[in-house]
C-alpha cells in the first residue's frame, strides 16, 4: 500500500514530469523527501516562487515538463511572472500548492494569504483541483492530463487534512 506521497510521485512520473522545482513548505516536507529520493526526478529548490515558475517555464519551452511545488503564500510572489510569462506566451503551468492558513493551521500569520488563495487562482485564471482527503487523489491524473495533453495550467491545492488521514 503506497503512501499519498508515493502515489503523487507515481502520478507525476506517469505524466512524463521529470523536473520538480520547489520552494519548501512544512506541510509538503514528506512529499519533497519522497521526490528527492526518487531517481525518476531531478529536484531543485528555487529561492522564491517567481524564480521557480520562471525555471519551470524554461523547462517547458525546452520541451520538458516540470511541476512547481510551493505553499500558498508564495502564490502572491509569482503573480506577475505567471501573467507576464505564462499567460502572455501561452505556456501551461503545473502547480502543487500546500494550503496554509486554513482551519488546520496554528500559524495566524498564514491566514490573510490563506483566505484569498482560491480567489487569487480564479482571478489568475488557473484551474484548481482541491485535495482534501485521500479519495481526492483520484483527481490528480485528470488534472495532469489537462497540463500535459491540453497544455493548460492546473493548480493542485493540498490541504493539511490530505496528509493527516491514517
Amino acid at each position, binding site marked *: 500500500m503506497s503512501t499519498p506521497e508515493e502515489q503523487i510521485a507515481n502520478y507525476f512520473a506517469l505524466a*512524463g514530469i*521529470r*523536473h520538480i522545482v520547489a520552494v519548501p513548505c512544512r506541510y509538503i516536507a514528506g512529499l519533497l523527501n519522497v521526490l*528527492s529520493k526518487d*531517481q525518476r*526526478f*531531478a*529536484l*531543485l*529548490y*528555487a*529561492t*522564491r516562487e*517567481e*524564480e521557480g515558475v*520562471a*525555471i*519551470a*517555464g*524554461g*523547462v*517547458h*519551452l*525546452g*520541451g*520538458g*515538463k*516540470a511541476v512547481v511545488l510551493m505553499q500558498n503564500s508564495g502564490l502572491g510572489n509569482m503573480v*506577475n*511572472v505567471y*501573467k*507576464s*510569462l505564462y499567460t*502572455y*506566451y*501561452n*505556456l501551461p503551468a503545473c502547480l502543487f500548492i500546500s494550503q496554509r492558513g486554513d482551519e488546520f493551521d496554528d500559524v495566524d500569520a498564514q491566514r490573510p494569504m490563506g483566505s484569498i488563495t482560491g480567489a487569487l487562482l480564479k482571478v489568475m485564471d488557473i484551474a484548481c483541483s482541491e485535495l482534501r482527503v485521500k479519495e481526492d487523489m483520484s483527481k490528480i491524473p485528470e488534472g495532469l492530463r489537462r497540463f500535459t495533453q491540453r497544455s493548460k495550467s492546473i493548480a493542485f491545492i493540498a490541504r493539511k487534512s490530505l496528509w493527516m488521514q491514517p
Partner: protein
Amino acid sequence: MNRTQAMRCITQSLTPATVVVCTLGKASNALYSLGDRAMNFYMLGSFGMAASLGVGLALVRTEKVVVIDGDGAILYNLGCLATVGWVRCSNLIHIICDNKVCESTGSQPTATSAGIDLASIGRSCGIDAIRVSSVHGLRNALKSALDSRRPQLIVVELDDGSDASWPRLPLTALEIKTRFRTALGTPHGRRIQRRKCYSSA
C-alpha cells in the same frame, strides 16, 4: 564599449546552435535589430526572470544557453545566481550588460553604480565570472565561455549614456515562442536530456 558594440560582439560570437534568452527593454530591441534569429527568446515581460528561464532551458537542452541580462534585471532576481551555482548549469552563459542604471525606466541608478560587483557575487556563488570593458575582452570571454563546461558569468561594463535607440521589436509573444520552439526542434518534447537530482550538493 556601448550597447551596440557589445550586442554586435555577442551576436557575432554565437554559434547557430546557441539558445539565447534576452531580457526586456533596450536589450531585446537592440538584439532584434542587430542579430534577430529564431533561436532568440525575447522575454518581454516578467522583469528579472531571463536568467531563471535560462536555467530551465539549460536543464533540458544540450545546447549552450546564453542569457543576455541587465544589472537592474539581475538585481531584481539576485537569488538566481545562487541557484545557478548550486545546480551547476554547465551549459549556461550569463551575460550582464552593466550600465549602472535602469535605462528603460529613465536611467535611475542601480546598486552597481555604488561599486557593488556582480562578478564577485557570481564568483561567490561558484560561477566562473569575469568583468570586461572592451570589445576585445568580451570576444575573448565569450570564446572561452562557449568552450567551458562550467556555469559562466560575463559582466560587460557599458559606457554611460545611451548610444542609439532601436525600434520596439515587432514580434508578438506567440510569434517569438512558436518560432523559438520550432527552431529548437522539440515542440513535443523530443531529445530531452535526463539530468541528475539537484536536491543535495
